[in-house]
């Protein structure tokens, strides 16, 4: 994949959560978990209804 690299600062507690999500199969690494979560967030946003005019 040739794309943009984004550096995400996390602390040790957030890293612990990422590691648990890796163990649960959300992604193969912390970076992949972050990326999959970002994609999930974007998909959730797309699924939201359009605001009323």
């Amino acid at each position, binding site marked *: 994949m040739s794309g943009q690299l*984004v550096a995400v600062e996390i602390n040790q507690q957030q890293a612990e959560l990422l590691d648990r999500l890796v163990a649960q199969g959300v992604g193969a690494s912390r*970076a992949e978990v972050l990326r999959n979560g970002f994609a999930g967030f974007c998909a959730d946003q797309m699924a939201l209804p359009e605001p009323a005019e």
Partner: protein
Amino acid sequence: MTIRLDHVLEPGSGKAVEVRRGEVVRVEQLEGGQCADFNAFNLHDYREFFHCGRTRVLHGMFPTAGDMLWSAPPRERPMFTIIADTAGINDLSFPRCTGVLFEYAWGYETHTNCQDILAEAEREYGLTPDDVHDSFNLWMNTKIDADTGRLSVERNTSQAGDYVELVAHFDCLVVVSVCGADVFNTSNFSLKPLRLAVRTATADERVEWLLPEARRFANQRVVEDFKIKEIRTERELSRDPTYVADFPGFPIRTTSVEVELTDDEYRQLEALRSHGGFGATDGEVLRHAFFTWCLDHWMQPHP
């Protein structure tokens, strides 16, 4: 079903009663339209007591049948479940009324108020006015203005015979006062008696409502976990010269994770950043999006 206590709370009074695990405390309207203030303590450790804030966050501002009353952190466990609520106008937003309130608002030198009533009732068990805590307000018909956040009290719509029943998950001291506010709308500008009763739960109620006794989270701190186990008796505070800070999880250390996004994904990230509200940098926006997604999909619902 055995009724162990059946007591009429006269206006201007309150009562402290022991409610054991598996017993049901019932507060009942005799005439209707009367607010009651409810305090509760662990009978075996009075420093564990009912907490409006935790209960409010978990069950909302107006708890009713099916909701639980929680004890304060660091114990933070269910004390009671509301198993019946015939009127459904309870409140967790207002603090208990106090003598000071009636003094500054109306000029009273003496006036019935829940702080003093609860304190006097709790004195039967050696508790002091400092031990009174904010109440679960039974039959207090409150409203919140969605725009300003301001609170108001509406007319009390409870009727004679309305009741609230709560089953205790561990041994508690329950203290109930007939709210003394007669110059506010809380009890329709008159003070009326209430019935306070304690009975054993039926077999069906125990099966439906009573939580397992051994339930505990590792982070529910109990006295054995405390670095200082004794309850202070001196009122003056002074610094411990031997104190060394020992905060859990401290120090916070940060690390950087490089996330590779496709061009499409990066365009989405740029759109979020330019939209505002997600962070100033690419990393902040991605972190915001990720943890928001986690909250929606991975956080465990509260027990």
